[in-house]
């Protein structure tokens, strides 16, 4: 497929640059032609625009949220009564595994990365991601991974050993058939996608910020994106290694996890949880970014203690790598070692405590407007702190030995994941929906939806603390009557259906507002950050002129007379690269044009990955089409005529 037809510059024409003599409608029409993509299915597949890919990520992730949510409701029906037989044990085991795996790998991380892909360029004031085609490739890898997992579930070889698929149960002898291979290969897909996104985000944030946006002037959400992306880069290789080792044990009979041949099931657990714990912070930190943005906007005040919040983000990111063994307190490792991890697990709550203080201080200092995003922030603080405190409890070894792998833990991580990440996500969607669609979501239905999900959530998950303390282990498809577990389970089931209804309400609100929401205009919330300087929805090229930034809250300080940078090419895709610390203009860099090849490469890699769980030769043979697709993808573009731009 050739790159889209481009007008050949006529000899006489000077290279067109934006500058004093090219402004207004003429400039925007030319930029539109350069930055838009061809129509049709091929065009859709070839798109490299960060806004389109971001939206696709979010919609796909919400679809997986809904599917995994339905599984959760089905499980709650089975657990509503003791000795129930709504589901057979095999169905229940596959249901909780698919629920866990989908929520963690196909919803939580991808949706956060989707929002980051969508917002980062327009927040830092640039026109595209650093590696646009890599971002497109990552979306297709994520999509194929999700489709593969659910196809496996549909074809009776979906995984059924829990979302972390511990070894010897998932090993070649006890992990019968292709179920554990399907799980491990899904991880390979999603970790490739997550790593690709993390790399492009870090490059975009460090090199493509608008001139003047020094590190100290970056929005908090961009800081959160930077920290999470670095955490992805450092933690995903651990899960890549462990899923690769499991696949090679299961397919070619290596002995990594064979306890008899001095392999070690605990090696699996160490490697998995070295990724596992940073993973939950990868989900939580972007949510703190949402909260900081929403609190600043709806309190009409810059965030209190900006350096403290940024240092807390970085502190949480680093500490998150030092406490994975608190998932393994019951495996009989030396007790002294455990006390180090207790201390580390306790210390990670200090940075989060500081952030909460700063948010509350911002609200105290500002004039809070209790609109829907702000309600979700308040709901977040009330819910997440309960989860954080129950986390402090299970950091202590004697307590964890009693409540580990019980419903107390299920309650804890739902409080910190739904309370800590989904509530801020719903707030963020409500907050940035107008920017993305140009229409407001209904404020009234938003408020009703918030109260239903907030109360439904407490009803669903607080009783699980009690069920856990009263001796209900995790992942049991049933429990005997007469142990006092009937009431908590019944309440949880009712609560979970309320939450289900509230999520449906939110989605309905989104869909209806897409057509019949109030028109929003560029800055409906009077927010400080750069993305509100673009139109709603932003044009293909985001900014007609790359803005220059002089403070943390550009829109609040110089609402209309924006200093801008001129001189970028108009007839070809070009970005302004700035230095890392002070963001002063550095060089001009061409940006990749839309291409079908990332999609084709993703298809080739997917076929090779899926084939490799049936025969190792699929990797060897599969690499040929992958090599061809990648070669076409990186085929160099002939450099056009250049002249030095004048920077005014």
């Amino acid at each position, binding site marked *: 497929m050739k790159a889209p037809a481009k007008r050949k510059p006529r000899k006489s024409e000077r290279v067109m640059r934006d500058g004093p003599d090219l402004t207004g409608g003429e400039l925007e029409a030319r930029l539109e032609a350069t930055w838009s993509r061809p129509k049709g299915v091929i065009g859709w597949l070839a798109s490299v625009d960060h806004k389109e890919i971001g939206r696709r990520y979010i919609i796909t992730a919400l679809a997986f949220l809904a599917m995994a949510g339905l599984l959760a409701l089905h499980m709650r029906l089975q657990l509503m009564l003791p000795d129930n037989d709504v589901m057979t044990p095999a169905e229940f085991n596959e249901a909780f595994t698919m629920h866990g795996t989908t929520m963690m790998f196909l919803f939580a991380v991808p949706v956060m990365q989707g929002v980051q892909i969508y917002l980062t360029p327009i927040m830092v004031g640039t026109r595209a991601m650093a590696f646009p085609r890599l971002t497109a490739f990552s979306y297709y890898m994520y999509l194929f991974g999700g489709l593969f997992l659910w196809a496996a579930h549909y074809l009776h070889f979906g995984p059924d050993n829990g979302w972390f698929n511990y070894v010897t149960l998932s090993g070649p002898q006890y992990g019968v058939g292709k179920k554990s291979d399907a799980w491990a290969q899904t991880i390979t897909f999603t970790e490739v996608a997550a790593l690709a996104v993390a790399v492009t985000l870090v490059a975009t944030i460090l090199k493509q910020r608008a001139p003047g946006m020094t590190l100290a002037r970056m929005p908090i959400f961009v800081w959160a994106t930077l920290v999470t992306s670095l955490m992805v880069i450092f933690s995903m290789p651990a899960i890549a290694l462990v899923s690769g080792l499991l696949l090679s044990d299961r397919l070619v009979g290596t002995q990594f996890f064979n306890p008899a*041949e001095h392999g070690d099931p605990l090696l699996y657990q160490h490697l998995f949880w070295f990724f596992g714990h940073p993973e939950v912070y990868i989900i939580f930190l972007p949510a703190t970014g949402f909260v900081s943005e929403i609190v600043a906007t709806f309190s009409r005040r810059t965030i209190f203690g900006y350096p403290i919040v940024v240092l807390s983000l970085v502190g949480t990111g680093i500490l998150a790598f030092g406490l994975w063994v608190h998932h393994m307190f019951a495996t009989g490792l030396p007790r002294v070692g455990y006390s180090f991890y207790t201390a580390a697990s306790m210390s990670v709550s200090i940075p989060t405590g500081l952030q909460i203080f700063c948010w509350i201080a911002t609200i105290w200092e500002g004039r809070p407007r209790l609109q829907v995003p702000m309600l979700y922030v308040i709901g977040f603080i009330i819910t997440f702190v309960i989860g954080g405190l129950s986390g402090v409890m299970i950091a202590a070894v004697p307590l964890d030995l009693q409540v580990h792998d019980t419903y107390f833990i299920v309650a804890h991580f739902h409080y910190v994941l739904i309370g800590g990440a989904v509530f801020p996500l719903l707030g963020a969607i409500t907050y940035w929906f107008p920017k993305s669609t140009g229409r407001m979501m209904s404020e009234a239905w938003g408020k009703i939806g918030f109260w239903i999900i907030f109360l439904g959530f407490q009803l669903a998950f607080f009783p699980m603390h009690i069920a856990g303390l009263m001796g209900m282990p995790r992942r049991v498809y049933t429990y005997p009557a007469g142990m006092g577990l009937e009431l908590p389970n019944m309440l949880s089931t009712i609560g979970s259906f309320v939450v289900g209804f509230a999520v449906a309400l939110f989605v309905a609100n989104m869909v209806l507002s897409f057509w019949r929401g109030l028109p929003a205009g560029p800055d409906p919330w009077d927010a400080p950050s750069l993305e509100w300087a673009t139109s709603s929805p932003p044009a293909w090229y985001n900014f007609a002129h790359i803005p220059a930034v002089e403070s943390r809250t550009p829109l609040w300080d110089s609402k209309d007379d924006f200093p801008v940078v001129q001189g970028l090419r108009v007839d070809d895709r070009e970005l302004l690269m700035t230095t890392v610390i002070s963001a002063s203009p550095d060089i001009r860099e061409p940006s990749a044009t839309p291409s079908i090849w990332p999609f084709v490469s993703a298809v080739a890699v997917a076929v090779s990955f899926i084939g490799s769980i049936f025969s190792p030769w699929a990797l060897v043979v599969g690499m040929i089409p992958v090599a061809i697709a990648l070669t076409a993808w990186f085929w160099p573009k002939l450099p056009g005529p250049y002249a030095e731009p004048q920077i005014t």
Partner: protein
Amino acid sequence: MRRILIGLIAAVILIALIAAVLWTRTSGRPTQNASGTAVNPNKAIAASAASPPDDGNWTMPSKDYAATRFSALNQVTPANVVGLKVEFTFSTGTTEGFEAPPLVVNNTMYVVSPWPNNVFALDLTKPGAPPKWVYKPNPAAAAKGVACCGPVNRGASYWNGRLYLNLLDGNTVAVDAETGAEVWRTKLADIQKGETITMAPLVAEGKVLVGDSGGEMGVRGWLAALDAASGKLVWKAYSTGPDKDALIGSAYRAPYAQDQGRDLGVKSWPPEYWKIGGGTVWGWVSYDPSSKTIYYGTSNPGPWNQEQRPGDNKWTAGVFARDINTGQARWFYQSTPHDLYDHDDINEILLVDYPVGNGQRIPALIRPSRNGFFYVQDRRNGRVLSAKPYGYINVYKGVDLKTGRLIPVPGMEPVAGKVSRNICPASPGAKDWNPSAFSPVTGLVYIPHLNLCQDMGVKNANYIAGTPFVGADVKMYAGPGGNRGLFTAWDPVAQRKVFEIKEDLPLWSPALATAGGVVFYGTMDGWFKAIDARNGKLLWQFKTGSGIIGQPISYRGPDGRQYIAVPSGVGGWAGAIVSANLDARDPTGALGFNNAMKDLPKRVSAGGMVYVFALPK
């Protein structure tokens, strides 16, 4: 006149000389017979009562009750052994492991084949030794399903006109040596419980001593004595269970405290495990007529997984001394308490008069045990005089002579779920059942043995009668040095090695020592070798049709010449990969031997032939 006289005297002297030489060569009377040798004070000599002077016959696999496997014929010497030629051969028509030695009595050779245990009587007086009669016992074919280490038979025994042998399916038969007619047949073992019989019976004092095999099948070991005339059971001593079953009574005095106590056969086992605890008797029995005492060893405890049977597991993996007439135990010494690696203790027991300084001698027994130690014990009370390793050992520290207890190296015991690596010696031990030979001439014990180590993983063994009760996966490989076999000449007095020959393949053939100063043994790829008894130099070798795992013997033929006979037919535990056509891609095949014998199928094929050699007339 004087010259004539001098010539006459010279002639007479010359004739006397020639006569003397001829007389020594022909009459076969060894210049120094076993008992008449000038008694060298610092050399062990065979127990005289148990090792009568050689009459040129070979009536039992161990040659004599002292198990010397020493032939006093000395026609074949290091000088002329290179002239040995094949006199005749005989094929048994079977391809299983051929472990039984041919017996020669009154110019008739009796050949016993592995399953179906046919017996052929060959008339040595006629050229080519044609068969006089064939005895076909037709044992049950199903017995092959419970024979752990190949459907083998370790030989018959001749005793006043009759041949006594055991059949694989647990019967003992007496056959008339002249006509080949079956005199009596007694059923002793039950293949439904996994019991077979492979040992060569020992016949003495009118009693036939027979023990069962099946340590790997969870059977209960015993030694039974049948009346040689009628085949009726005289007494039966179990190797596990209460003292009344083990015939341990007032006459019993254990050499060490570890083996003294009431009903240790029950107390040293977890409940009910002694009933399926092994301790079978499938090896060699020796007999000292002077004290009317038999000496034999018991096999490994079952199952191989040591964690399933905590405790010392009495009376397995040890040596019993019993009165031959009543079976009452005199003493018992447990070489390997709570055996960890299937180190049976059924190896041959040589009875010697052992020098203890200043010309004094005590009746002793010396034996190269499977756990790698060469024991010298006072056979009156079982006390261990010395125990030195004769092969490479890294799983035992040594034997504490004060308590008699074997000291294992901590941390090497196989536990469930974790493979133990580099266990030397491997399960077949430093030497398996193939017996050594003792030459009173050189005073050395010639030991054909192994140099194997193994990786071993154990798991919970399930007991179903008639099926294997092992609970262990094993992979064997060559020990240090890369050679899998060793032929060692051991000085039992100085307790040290005199010389050693490295053999590529494990040595599974017994040894034969002769008064002529030549020692014979065979290799698993078919080489029948003769070496110098003093320095182990290879003198002569002959490539037989199949691997040699049977006992070579030496006898005096009807024409007075010394004949050497050797059975050739690879098989047994080590040769199972060839005789049972196993698949080398599975290293744990044949209870772990496949891994060590991957190359054997390419070097040798199955067979079943007796070769008889002699110096040309």
